[in-house]
């Protein structure tokens, strides 16, 4: 009887301890992220990157530039404005776009923003600290031909427990010298959410 009691008590103890550990983590493929809340997620960012990359590298502006100038265009990434109803970080798909420029070898990319400031600060530091042979000079940066800017917008239609959300991501390529917009790409994503 005592033995049965001890076995039962041990079983109850183990069961109670194991039931406390409710959290379970499973690793999934980043390309198969499920939709959980209906908000912007990894899948949306990936679809946007794929579509915009395909558009920007296949449009006529690239061939036209190479024919006119005889060299690859140089692009700098500008500001992306998020005017939607959620917090969206454009860097998640802009980085994919930049990587496609480098890997395809069709477009040259120059650094911009805080990373460029950091690079110049390092160059300034070299003027006093680096050896003469390894010191990098100012005034030799590659100037960009085009600037890539964008915006993210959203439209929300909600009634009781149903909601539709439409995102529109627009990117524009503008000639820095002539102010001419030479390419506009867009990606629309629509979702239906039911609570």
């Amino acid at each position, binding site marked *: 009887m005592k033995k049965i009691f001890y076995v039962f008590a041990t079983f109850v103890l183990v069961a109670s301890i194991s039931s406390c550990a409710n959290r379970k983590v499973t690793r999934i493929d980043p390309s198969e992220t499920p939709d959980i809340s209906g908000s912007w997620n990894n899948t949306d960012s990936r679809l946007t990157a794929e579509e915009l990359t395909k558009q920007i590298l296949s449009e006529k502006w690239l061939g036209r530039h190479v024919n006119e100038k005889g060299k690859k265009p140089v692009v*700098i990434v500008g500001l992306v404005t*998020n005017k*939607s*109803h*959620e917090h969206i970080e454009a860097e998640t798909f*802009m980085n994919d776009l930049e990587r496609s420029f480098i890997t395809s070898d069709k477009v040259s990319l120059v650094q911009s*923003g805080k990373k460029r400031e950091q690079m110049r600060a390092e160059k300034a530091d070299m003027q006093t600290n680096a050896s003469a042979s390894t010191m990098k000079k100012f005034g030799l940066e590659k100037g960009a031909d085009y600037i890539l800017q964008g915006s993210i917008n959203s439209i*929300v239609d*909600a009634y009781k427990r149903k909601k539709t959300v439409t995102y529109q991501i627009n990117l524009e390529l503008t000639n820095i010298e002539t102010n001419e917009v030479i390419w506009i790409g867009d990606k629309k994503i629509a979702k239906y959410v039911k609570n």
Partner: protein
Amino acid sequence: MRTTILLILLGCMNSVYAQQQLAPDQNPNYLVSQQKYMQVKDSLLFTMNTTEQSTYKAYDWYEVKMERRQNRINTRQQVRINRSLRPIINNGWNDGWNNNWNNNGWNNNGWNNGWNRNRWNNSRFFPGTIGYRTGNWWFWF
């Protein structure tokens, strides 16, 4: 000596002339714009390669309902906390009842003696936390 000075002067004039030469179809007033943007370029370029968050709050009936529910829960919790922190006051009920019953003539009818002596002025039975919503309010009669 004179030739050297003349050559130096010619070189300087040449460089000045080269700077003033416009590109084909260039606006001669370009310096106005150039000087304007040279002064503000740092502040304008600060947001390069970033995402400017200019979001708005979209109306979602279900989310508003959930928010209202959560606010109700939070409010009730705060009321309960405030109630537990409130100090016990003995003069609220007793003063009111005593003054009314004593000063309005009830005293003469014997109400004062009955009411005050027995229960209504006894702070032991009616601390300041007693009220309708606390559940410990009861009728004497």
